[in-house]
């Protein structure tokens, strides 16, 4: 990485790979992965990932949406074969699927036509267990996760938290070496999630029985500090490992303890620091010379989120700590980062360290009337190269309109690693909001609102 983090490494528990001495259960080496987009172009989601899962640890993948953390989980589980790189299981190349893995899915992924018991029994049957052992094991796991009494219930009769309990029971029933948790608490209410986190720690805490290790994916900073021994911080577009933070606090951990708060703080800094480096402004000329084709990507953020951020900042005297904003507005930190990035792109705010500061243009925008706002928004958009190019493109057309496909081509050419359809949607949303672009879905044409004859 050519970006320097503006934090001194000594202040974190940055872990050299040699520190832990547990046996390596599974590992990815130099893994990159690309998905094929609908038009056949590749979308790079992971870039040169190196990661090990060792015995007796809870390892968490933390990162904003689009950093490929779920993809890493699926590669380690053997569900996805990476485009490049090696996947090892106990030191050998992994044979198809990971033989020791069980996954707890984000949406539980239970079969709705089967009762709680049946949902668990089928995975035991698939494992080749005999009827008597199934009859013994299934009730045991059900009881283990506190579902006794719900044996004959169908998933549709259960709450989100209860469903997730079945998911956990199903995973534990096959006695896995590694338990994979794919954002398992993100779709259930906060209180239930709290109790489930503690229960998962209890179930996985014992050294003498399976699961030996847990790999979890999360975008919730507090959650990973509460649970994990090692936190792998990922950066997005394409996904890379930014850094690895070791948490050596005893359990049970207290959310309010100074140590926990300190690590939470550090993680915020790492993420803000790496996602928004405070690099000195380069002149436009050198920037253009350095990157002749690449253009700044548009974050997948709606205009109203950006305006909301500006209004919020204005009401707080023009600046606020990023973490505070996330907590105040109940916005997931990764999402907030994208919104701040978008506002910064439009030169409404600046971000010294962890602060978000309303700039002159931003203040002008907040004070303006509706019509003036549109004009300011338009001016800011026209400072972005992608908008300049699209506007030029439209002006060059004889009938002053372009088809969506042509714009998509431009985006693919200019931002080869972006999801071009998402970029297009953002382009249209921002353009419409500034009364700059008009788009008709039926004919898929785009024109300039002010200049269409």
């Amino acid at each position, binding site marked *: 990485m050519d970006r320097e983090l503006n934090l001194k490494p000594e202040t974190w528990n940055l872990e050299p790979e040699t520190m832990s001495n547990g046996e390596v259960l599974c590992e990815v080496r130099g893994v990159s992965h690309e998905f094929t987009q609908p038009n056949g172009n590749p979308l790079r989601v992971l870039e040169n990932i190196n990661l090990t899962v060792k015995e007796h640890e809870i390892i968490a993948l933390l990162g904003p949406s689009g950093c490929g953390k779920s993809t890493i989980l699926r590669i380690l589980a053997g569900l996805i074969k990476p485009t490049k790189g090696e996947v090892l299981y106990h030191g050998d190349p992994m044979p198809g699927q990971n033989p020791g893995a069980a996954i707890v899915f984000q949406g539980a992924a239970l079969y*709705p036509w089967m009762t709680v018991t049946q949902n668990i029994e*089928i995975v035991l049957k698939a494992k080749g267990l005999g009827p008597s052992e199934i009859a013994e094991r299934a009730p045991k796991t059900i*009881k283990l996760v506190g579902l006794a009494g719900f044996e004959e219930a169908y998933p549709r009769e259960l709450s989100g938290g209860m469903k997730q309990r079945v998911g956990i029971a199903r995973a534990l029933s096959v006695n896995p070496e590694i338990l994979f948790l794919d954002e398992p608490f993100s779709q259930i209410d906060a209180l239930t999630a709290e109790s489930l986190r503690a229960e998962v720690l209890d179930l996985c805490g014992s050294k003498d029985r399976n699961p030996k290790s847990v790999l979890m994916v999360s975008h919730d900073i507090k959650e990973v500090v509460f649970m994990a021994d090692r936190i792998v911080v990922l950066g997005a577009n394409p996904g890379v490992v930014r850094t690895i933070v070791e948490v050596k606090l005893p359990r049970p951990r207290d959310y309010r303890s100074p140590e926990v708060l300190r690590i939470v703080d550090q993680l915020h800094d790492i993420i803000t620091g790496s996602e928004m480096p405070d690099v000195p402004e380069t002149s436009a000329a050198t920037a253009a010379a350095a990157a002749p084709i690449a253009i700044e990507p548009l974050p997948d953020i709606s205009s109203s989120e950006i305006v909301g951020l500006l209004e919020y900042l204005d009401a707080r005297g023009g600046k606020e700590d990023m973490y505070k904003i996330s907590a105040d507005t109940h916005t997931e930190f990764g999402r907030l980062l994208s919104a701040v990035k978008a506002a910064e792109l439009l030169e409404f705010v600046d971000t010294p360290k962890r602060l978000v500061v309303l700039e002159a243009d931003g203040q002008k925008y907040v004070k303006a009337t509706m019509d003036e706002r549109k004009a300011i928004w338009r001016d800011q958009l026209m400072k972005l190269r992608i908008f300049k190019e699209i506007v030029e493109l439209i002006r060059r057309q004889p009938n002053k309109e372009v088809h969506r496909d042509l714009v998509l081509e431009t985006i693919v050419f200019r931002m080869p690693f972006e999801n071009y359809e998402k970029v297009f949607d953002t382009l249209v949303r921002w353009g419409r909001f500034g009364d700059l672009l008009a788009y008709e879905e039926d004919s898929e044409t785009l024109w300039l609102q002010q200049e269409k004859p």
Partner: protein
Amino acid sequence: MKKFFGHIWGNAHAALNLTRGSGFADLLLLGGIAGIVFGLFNFSNEWAAPSSENTLIDLSPWALPKYTFFSLSRGIIAYIFSLLFTLLYGYWAAKDKIAQRVLIPLLDILQSLPVLAFLPVVSITLMNLFKNNKIGLELVVIVMIFTGQAWNMTFSFFHSINSIPIEMREAAAVYRLNWWERFKWMELPYSMMGLVWNSMMSMAGGWFFLMVCESFTLNDKPYSLPGIGAYMAAACALDDPHKRHTAQFWAILAMVLMIVLLDQLLWRPVVVWAQKFRVEEGGAQENATSWFLDFLRRSKILALLEKIFSHNEKPTPLTAADALKPIAQALPSSALPDINKLNIVGKTVSTLVFVFFMGGLVWGGVKLLLLLLQVGGKDWMEIGVGALATFARVMAVTVVGTLWALPAGLAIGLSPKLSRILQPVVQVAASFPAPMLYAVVWLVLKPLGLNTVAMVLMLLGTQWYILFNVIAGAMAIPADLKEMSHSFGVTGWQRFWTLYAPACFPYLVTGWVTAAGGAWNASIVSEYLVIGSATPEKAIGLGRKISEVAGVAGQEPILAASVVVMSAMVVLFNRFVWKRLYDLAETRFSLSK
């Protein structure tokens, strides 16, 4: 009136309740089974009869119970074939992405082919196989009914498998369900609801051509097999109007009874049972009920059988100490089924079958081409004109059907009371084979000439699809949108254009596709009517052309050309019109987003 029905039903229920303790349910059940066995015995005798003997249809109403049973058996056997075909073909198409590219377009074409198109190929093969008895002939009829049933079930199954949520599939992979376990625990249950509804539609579709299927001409020789369809065909051929009308009346009555019984004794219970496979969450839906299923559940014999066949041991209650013990240690790795190996076997089989299949297709294609080359310019001309005429009729039928079914469907669907009473009635009406009514309609409308009346005849069978789709659409309009219209005083036409029409549009498109497809098919029977022994009534059209040449020796090239043209028109129209309307409905008028 209401009181009257309540009285009757109340009594009926009371009678059923009485049976609870005294074992009447079992007695009735045994009686029913004995009846079915006796009927099947008769049916198998019929199969074993020598093929030379042409069946004379007995037109006395007392022969009808037997004929109805025979027709029903054929329909059910054909349905079993359809189901097997669906599972095999749909599964194959869903799993093998290369084969899929051929299988799905082929299914599209098969769906567009009229029943008579299959007759020559099927009959030559089967009747040569079984020369000495009627099995061959019976199988021809069954396969013809099958061709009216199978395709939409297969499409439904294929789409269901493809739309299984990704997490569910990943769970199956992670927990190493092998292909069979995936099929029986995930793919089949997930497809169940769609399969059940499409099975009902398919059975109805299979009856539509019952008359054509049970009495047809092959190489200038007429064939008929005992059944309601043949009974009706024989009735229509009677010269004495009085006798003709009586026999037609009995046939229609028998058909209605059969459809109602099938609905009550088979489909209702199946629908109720299939509710456990609902995928969507939320339990506020109204649960369908079936008195027959309740009745069966009361039977002691069935309960006993269930006990014998399900070896589900009740889990032994655990003590708290047991539960806290660690789960048994790691399993031997040999217990893990090797999924990859099976995949290789499956792939090899799939590839081999596919190669054979493609070979067959190419061979068939060449044969067809050679056949088409024999068709002269004049015949092509006639076929073209006929195709345009039939196309115009199909469009007219769709428009006219919409004009009456849209307001009627809205009226029914928007009123909970009406929809509760009329929806099942419409469903039964839709599964009644309209061609059985053609003779009656023709009697009344004869002065208009068949060119016009053919449209009425086509409408008779296909309007129901539009109607019940609109009813479903109207019932699905969200309450908040209706309240909005109400509170802002949007009424009359304005409300129709701003709310009802757009909200029903996706359903309407589904109705149109089914109705238009049905109308093309119906053109075969409605553009060429046989009444009495007089020369058949004919209208200009492609359907008439097919009816005329089907089964006539030496006319195979013209039959092939007509069928190819019809299939091409249906497929192209699907691609370029219906598909676009579907997309429009999904993007712009979908209420689920």
